[in-house]
């Protein structure tokens, strides 16, 4: 992604009250919010918010109810007038614009989609979508033409003349989206646009927004209180608390390096397996052996590392050719066969961007570590069970943590459980799991930090042999005859990227 700054927010502050300047000066004196509220009875909606949004990205603003997300979004198009600060869109400060300039900017650069759809009840679908163009004085034929195109983009062709009341929630929000798109704005502001929809429809709409984003390349600023949604949609996420931005980062950064206990508590309930990718949990593929070297070299490498199998690659580009078992290497040494003749060419491969929840069933069923391979066939890394578990366990989840909607922050502070890294796991909810993990002593340091969703553990540990101590080591060497069999089980065909060479 090219990182042109599309929109820049500098020190935006919003005070709700009669005498905001007084609050600003109190803030400068370093008074706390509760003190200020006691004194002045004015609410601080936003306090010195800074961030940049890049051209073409989806930037998610996330936080609990009342954290100031809607206020922030509405400051961006001045539906709410910020008390102080600057908002630059393409370098122009919108806070300094005259009414006329503001109107033009809103018409051409900023589209908005609302939580409760906000469709005009007296207008048909088409007239709703054409609203933005109508107020710009665009002739009827032209604006209906564009509105039809926008409706087609959101998959509502054929509903042009429908009444708003005849539409389902999902369809209404498509109309809302089409209305914003019809103006062809650079930036889409979306305030909890999918929150009023049923979970299934909501998920569909998220997928469609992502595919739409691929096609139309808008900059989208999306407000959500739902972490899963934020992680799914966001190229980057800003996490808000009490009118301030606590952390800005990619979904992975938010998950793996929470800035403080608030963030880690916030992300505690999330299903990491959907967010993390194969790439983020893979290990360096070393050692590997080149196809051109002999079985002796391979044996030596395996002996050095104390492992029972090794990947075979070809050339400078590390093209993955297969896997060599220690038994077969011995065999080859005795009989003088080449590496190519004894290695197992068919092994499970996954692309680097495969989400972890798809990786898990593969690795659970596989006898070997998974090879992470890019489009060119280059071996990028390997995934063993231990690294999957480790990644899922990072930052400590406890099973009784509520969803991301309602983390009990008071509790966090009192017990200090979540300071920095997570505290020890709750014995009651996790004793059993811990046992299993400890016994296998995989990635001990990480696993200790907390138990993981039991379902995932079962998934990974429940089937197949237990992972071995060395992360790089490979499952028990198969019998000699095994080399002709595909290692993947039949039901996994199709899901697995299995190639025969």
């Amino acid at each position, binding site marked *: 992604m090219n990182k042109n700054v599309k929109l820049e927010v500098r020190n935006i502050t919003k005070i709700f009250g009669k005498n905001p300047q007084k609050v600003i000066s109190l803030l400068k004196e370093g008074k706390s919010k509760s003190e200020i509220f006691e004194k002045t009875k004015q609410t601080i909606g936003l306090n010195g918010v800074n961030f940049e949004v890049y051209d073409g990205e989806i930037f998610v603003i996330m936080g609990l109810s009342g954290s100031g997300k809607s206020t922030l979004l509405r400051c961006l198009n001045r539906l709410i007038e910020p008390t102080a600060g600057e908002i630059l869109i393409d370098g122009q400060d919108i806070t300094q614009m005259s009414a006329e300039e503001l109107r033009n900017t*809103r018409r051409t650069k900023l589209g908005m989609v609302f939580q409760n759809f*906000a469709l005009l009840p*007296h207008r048909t679908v088409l007239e709703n979508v054409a609203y933005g163009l109508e107020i710009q004085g665009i002739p009827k034929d032209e604006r209906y033409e564009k509105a039809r195109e926008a409706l087609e983009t959101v998959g509502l062709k054929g509903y042009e003349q429908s009444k708003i009341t005849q539409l389902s929630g999902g369809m209404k929000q498509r109309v809302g989206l089409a209305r914003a798109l019809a103006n062809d704005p650079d930036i889409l502001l979306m305030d909890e646009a999918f929150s009023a929809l049923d979970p299934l429809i909501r998920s569909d709409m998220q997928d469609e927004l992502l595919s739409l984003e691929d096609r139309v390349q808008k900059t989208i600023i999306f407000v959500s209180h739902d972490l899963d949604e934020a992680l799914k949609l966001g190229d980057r996420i800003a996490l808000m608390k009490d009118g301030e931005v606590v952390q800005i980062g990619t979904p992975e950064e938010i998950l793996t390096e929470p800035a403080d206990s608030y963030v880690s508590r916030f992300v505690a309930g999330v299903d990491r397996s959907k967010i993390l990718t194969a790439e983020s949990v893979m290990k360096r593929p070393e050692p590997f052996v080149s196809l051109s070297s002999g079985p002796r070299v391979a044996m030596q490498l395996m002996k050095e590392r104390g492992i029972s199998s090794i990947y075979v690659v070809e050339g400078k580009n590390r093209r993955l050719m297969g896997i060599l078992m220690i038994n077969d290497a011995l065999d080859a040494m005795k009989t003088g066969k080449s590496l190519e003749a004894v290695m197992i060419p068919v092994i499970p491969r996954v692309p680097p961007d495969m989400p972890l929840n798809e990786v898990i069933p593969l690795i659970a069923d596989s006898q070997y570590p998974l090879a992470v391979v890019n489009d060119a066939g280059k071996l990028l890394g390997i995934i063993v069970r231990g690294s999957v578990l480790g990644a899922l366990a990072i930052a400590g989840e406890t099973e009784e943590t509520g969803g991301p909607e309602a983390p009990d922050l008071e509790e966090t502070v009192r017990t200090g459980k979540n300071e920095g890294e997570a505290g020890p796991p709750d014995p009651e909810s996790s004793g059993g799991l811990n046992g299993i993990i400890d016994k296998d002593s995989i990635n001990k340091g990480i696993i200790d930090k907390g138990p993981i969703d039991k379902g995932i553990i079962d998934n990974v540990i429940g089937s197949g042999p237990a992972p071995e101590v060395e992360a790089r080591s490979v499952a028990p060497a198969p019998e000699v005859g095994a080399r002709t069999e595909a290692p993947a089980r039949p039901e996994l065909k199709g899901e697995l990227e299995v190639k025969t060479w």
Partner: protein
Amino acid sequence: MVIPRIPIGNTVEFAVDGIETHFGAVLDLVSDQLDFLISALKDALLFLPPELFIVGISLLAYFAGRRNIKLAAGTAFGFFLIENMGLWELSIETLALVLSSAFMALLIGVPVGILCAKNAVIYHIVKPSLDFMQTMPSFVYLIPALIFFGLGNVPGMIATVVFAMPPAIRLTNLGVRQVPKELTEVADAFGSTGWQKLAKVELPVALPTIMAGINQCIMLSLSMVVIAAMIGARGLGYQVLFGIQRIDIGLGFEAGLAIVIIAVVLDRITQHLSPK
């Protein structure tokens, strides 16, 4: 200690006299215009033969009521009865008076209602005035109207306008205020001007409530027009008054019945006009 009587009555009398002497010419001009409006409407309605009028108003009721055949039939029967009782001309005169009064009340009331919704200062001035206007017994309006405009239809109409305007203001104000915040945000977020927001979002969305105000305004006009017979407004009210003076139950009842018929028909038609 004796507190002297505060001369409220005298002051009002004095003010009314002052207006009468200084603005007499203006008042006469207004009076002429209004008289013209009423007469023109009345003449236009009377120009139609009763049969045609009945067909017309029944069709109006039919379509206003979303193809409501019962309402159309009831309307036709009601107006046939009026014609049959020999009260046609009086009824049309009442109708003309009601419609022109309601029209004036709405002409002032709806914009004032919009202003009230938009501007807190105006709202805080208008609201107590409305309370005052509505709690004052309606007969009281007759006196200044009589003084400024003499006897006849025009003072009746003025009193009616004053009496019927408050619900138009109130409900317009309410309707515009009740437009969901998200919808006004839509108007703003897409870059509407103030007028565009009003015409394309606020008024259409507020229309059902405004129509309720219009309905109330017309009903109140009708009731006041009858009372206004006391200062010389003609039509059915005058007939009722006549019946009272002569203690002629039959005459009074027939005129009363005609008023009820007109009231019901106007109510049903305007009720259904609001889009739902």
